């Protein structure tokens, strides 16, 4: 004898429309996929990595970096997570392909093309208030007889480091055609950084 309850149950199923079945299936599939991605997102993280070897003080182009997913435990402190925060900026030290980009390796946004980053030894009193990314006027004053002062305006301060001898090294981006003027002063002159009003230093 047929089970009336089972027969009633079988009759009930076709009352659900195919549209409703589709909607339920999509909801369940979406929830399952979202849960999977959420679990994966808790274990992994997207960070900025270098796609090719980069030399120090080079402006990062769009093709130089990419986002890569990796285990959260392998991500170092200060790792960059946004491509926009790296692209178009200077890198402050050489990076190898596949290396994760960290915050202290990223400098200010690169200035106009055709500039070169040069190190300058400046007195502590001249650079005490200078911040990375500031625009300064570079005053190159040769000491001793001969030569004349050279002024290079609106120079971007890329990085600053202390030397082993206790001095202060400032890396600035200057036009390529002013390298000679800097070379003449280096070693026998004095570099002074002058704040540019409104440069945000």
């Amino acid at each position: 004898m047929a089970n009336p309850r089972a027969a009633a149950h079988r009759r009930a199923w076709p009352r659900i429309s195919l549209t409703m079945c589709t909607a339920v299936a999509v909801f369940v599939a979406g929830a399952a996929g979202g849960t999977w991605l959420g679990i994966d997102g808790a274990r992994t993280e997207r960070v900025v990595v270098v796609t090719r070897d980069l030399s120090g003080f080079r402006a990062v182009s769009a093709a130089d970096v990419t986002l890569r997913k990796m285990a959260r435990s392998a991500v170092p402190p200060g790792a960059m997570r946004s491509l926009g925060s790296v692209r178009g900026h200077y890198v402050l030290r050489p990076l190898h392909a596949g290396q994760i980009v960290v915050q202290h390796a990223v400098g200010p946004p690169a200035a106009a093309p055709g500039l070169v980053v040069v190190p300058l030894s400046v007195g502590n009193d001249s650079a005490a208030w200078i911040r990375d990314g500031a625009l300064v006027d570079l005053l190159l004053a040769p000491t001793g007889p001969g030569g004349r002062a050279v002024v290079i305006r609106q120079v971007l301060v890329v990085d600053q480091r202390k030397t082993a001898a206790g001095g202060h090294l400032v890396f600035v981006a200057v036009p390529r055609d002013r390298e000679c003027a800097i070379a003449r002063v280096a070693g026998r002159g004095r570099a002074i950084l002058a704040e540019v009003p409104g440069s945000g230093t």
Partner: protein
Amino acid sequence: MFATAISTVTGVLDRRFLRNSFALSLAFIVLCGVVALAGNGQLGAAITIWQSWRAPVQLLAAAAFIATVWVVAAVVQSQIRSITQAFEGYWSGPLRPLRRYGEKRHWQRLDKLRSQQQAAQIYARYPLSRNEVRATRLGNILRAAECYPRDRYGADSVLVWPRLYPLLPDNIITGIGQARESLEFLLVLSALAAAFGTVSGIYLIVVMAPVWLFLVCVWGAFAVAILAYRSSLGAALLYAEVLRSTFDMHRLDIFSNMRLPAPANAAAERQRWTEFSRLVLRNVPLPQPYPPPPP
């Protein structure tokens, strides 16, 4: 002047193609591209690269993109009939169980409407014969219109319609075209939205995209697909009624254009349509003599 140029261009180009295929294909391809880039975190870089191109290069890229969309739209246009049949429930192979499920459900619903004597609902939404019931609501609405000439007059719509259509007045043809165009737009929208939801969902799972992007793409796209399908049922009801009324008002134009006398009553009309089908399918000559040509 701009409005005049637009109206001239759209007048030259088929409006149905532009609306039902090109516009929807354009939206589909653009959304696929945005999701593909955003899923990998490359959307900003792509915009930067685009902005770095010079104007002539941008124009060439835009022209190539439009040409690509045009080709895709042409493919979509050629498949509108298949898309419509898919929504009508003409399923085979691994979808056969789904078709049987849908047909069984609609049998139950048809039986229920008959028991409640809901003649108006049955007229608009179901063919009279249980054997003609399809798996989807759209399929039943369109099948009801297809079966109407046979059920009411004994005329096979598949044979009659291609011969009747050229005889119709322009305003009737325009009305049929507009009703069909609205129906096709919603079905193509539903199909492309479902395709986008499926493809983007699979892609975003593979690239491990953010959860919010995955849910927006999948749930959002299928919500659009389901809403578009539900909206198409209203358009289908209108289209089906236009077809039925066209048969009612103009079916005898075929006999008059074939220089045959009009049937005297309903029974004679059924017999005439039977003879017509034999003529078309089996070359059996009509028994009625041709009247002399008009002076």
